[in-house]
């Protein structure tokens, strides 16, 4: 099957039902997207498909053939995406394992809701678990990322 990953076309030799996460990590070598639970319960594997967040662990690769898949590696070329800058500025990360999923979820949120309230952030980010409990910093950083995006004219 042919998959469009981070703007490049990849010919993938895999069973149709292989999870997209396996394709990304094991076949394409993009290991920024993490395996957490394997059943869409934790959010660590979040990628974007045609700009919408999607849990790659429960997405058969064949289901997204022909769609634009974006992983944490190509959110920006130089960590300049507003969410990445806010995450660095507020030093959100503790162990970091969940954070690529958190960043991808946050990026989807501020695209859908350029000025999110606390309630909007809680609703959108509730599916992304963090065992270190960085939730307060995540919420603050989403607000900051939204500000940065507005300053950049992205929203």
């Amino acid at each position, binding site marked *: 099957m042919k998959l469009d990953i981070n703007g490049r076309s990849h010919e993938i030799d895999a069973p149709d039902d292989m999870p997209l996460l396996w394709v990304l990590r094991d076949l394409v070598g993009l290991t920024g997207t993490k395996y957490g639970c394997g059943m869409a*319960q934790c959010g660590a594997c979040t990628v974007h498909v045609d700009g919408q*967040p999607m*849990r790659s662990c429960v997405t058969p690769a064949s289901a997204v053939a022909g769609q634009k898949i974006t992983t944490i590696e190509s959110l920006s070329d130089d960590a300049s995406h507003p969410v990445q800058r806010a995450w660095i500025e507020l030093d959100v990360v503790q162990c970091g394992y969940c954070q690529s999923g958190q960043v991808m979820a946050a990026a989807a949120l501020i695209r*859908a809701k350029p000025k999110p309230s606390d309630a909007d952030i809680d609703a959108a980010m509730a599916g992304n678990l963090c065992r270190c409990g960085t939730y307060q910093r995540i919420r603050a950083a989403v607000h900051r990322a939204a500000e940065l995006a507005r300053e950049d004219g992205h929203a």
Partner: protein
Amino acid sequence: MHVCILRIFATLSALLLAASAFARVAEADADFATVQRVLQHPRCANCHIPGDAPLQFDDSRPHAQHVRRGDDGKGAPGLPCSTCHGQANLPASYGAHVPPGAPNWHLPPAAHRMVFIDAPAAQLCRTLKDSAQNGGKDLAALLEHVRSDALVLWGWNPGQGRAPVPVPHADFVDAFRRWTDAGAPCPG
């Protein structure tokens, strides 16, 4: 004598007509009871709810992860239903604890909630027929919706660990058709 016989015939005819009408109402009520049994099964009612938090599983517990309806019924901004619910149930190789999938996974929009859960029969019936709530559907469109909509059909093929709607789909559609053919009367 003739007048007397005519009166008896007239009375009998009226009684037969009344009995026939009564039987038609009873049949329509029975058909709607079948419809109600389907609409209030967890596969349908878990998302036809008065609040903003959808339910899940056969015991209709609140959906994990604080999932919200969203104004358009497709989830909170940034966490659409499609984040986890794909276009089809996943293969068995994914295990028993993964989200189910069907095309256009969603709840009714916030402005038109189409509440099925716990609704008394007459109220459920009025809700179903109210084109201001049901997306502008007349009876024919409602029948087509229950007959062929992919998300409706998912209720009979809900994937591992979920009970399907117990009324066979064909029986449901037949009952729905008879009820609409009878003018879609509301019970009570």
